[in-house]
């Protein structure tokens, strides 16, 4: 997995690509979330449009991120969830946990709009 971040207004966009599967991936994402919160940014989007697959350990990373941001009084949304990943979200009912958007733009607008 590779990760990069950028800031759009008050919103931090974290873009992940590759495979999301726990191990070292967990620490990289945790780090990015922590840095954003420390910088006072509490509105975040994780874009997973370029993630080819997620296993349940990778789901754990997304859940932990959601919990950390929520506990800090912020909001985490996801964008560009592939059919393959949304299959797992449906089965595990995690679609009731994550607000998801078709595009990064749509997710940004849901914060600022």
């Amino acid at each position, binding site marked *: 997995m590779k990760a990069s971040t950028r800031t759009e207004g008050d919103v931090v966009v974290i873009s992940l690509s590759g495979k999301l*599967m*726990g191990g070292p991936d967990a620490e990289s994402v945790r780090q990015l979330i922590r840095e954003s919160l420390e910088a006072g940014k509490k509105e975040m989007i994780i874009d997973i449009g370029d993630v*080819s*697959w997620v296993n349940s350990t990778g789901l754990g990373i997304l*859940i*932990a991120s959601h919990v950390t941001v929520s506990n800090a009084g912020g909001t985490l949304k996801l964008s560009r969830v592939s*059919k393959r990943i949304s*299959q797992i979200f449906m089965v*595990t009912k995690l679609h009731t946990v994550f607000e998801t958007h078709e595009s990064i733009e749509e997710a940004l607008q849901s914060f600022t709009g």
Partner: protein
Amino acid sequence: MAERLPPSKIVLEIPSRLEWLDLVDRMATGIAEQMAFSEEDANSVANSVLEAATNAIQHGHQYNPAHPVGIVFEVAPDVLRVKVHDKGPGFDVGKVLNANPTGPESLLEPRGRGIFIMKSLMDEVVFEMEAGKGCTAVLTKHHPARRAAL
């Protein structure tokens, strides 16, 4: 009626490291494609085989790269059976097989979804364990179109 061929057997062996999981995905996806599974069923197969291989690496072998994880794909026209084998001690299937990680009290747990995902997406999930022989997850997916055509 066409003669029933014995299933084609395809074998993959990877060291117990997460970095090789993507090969498991490529194989599962390639075989599902060759079998002409629907996109949704191909996703079910690939997502489930990844879960079983992740468990074999993490729980079965505790990331010990000296122990390879063995994956056997048995391909018949109307059914795919995938056996994911590790040399680990196995586990108490009764305890986890009926776990439901979708309830409100466990929905935000970071773990405990692998077997539930396999069970939800495959037609059959069985664990075979024998002392000294390790643990094998046996995942079965029928090909609905092929069954209807028989």
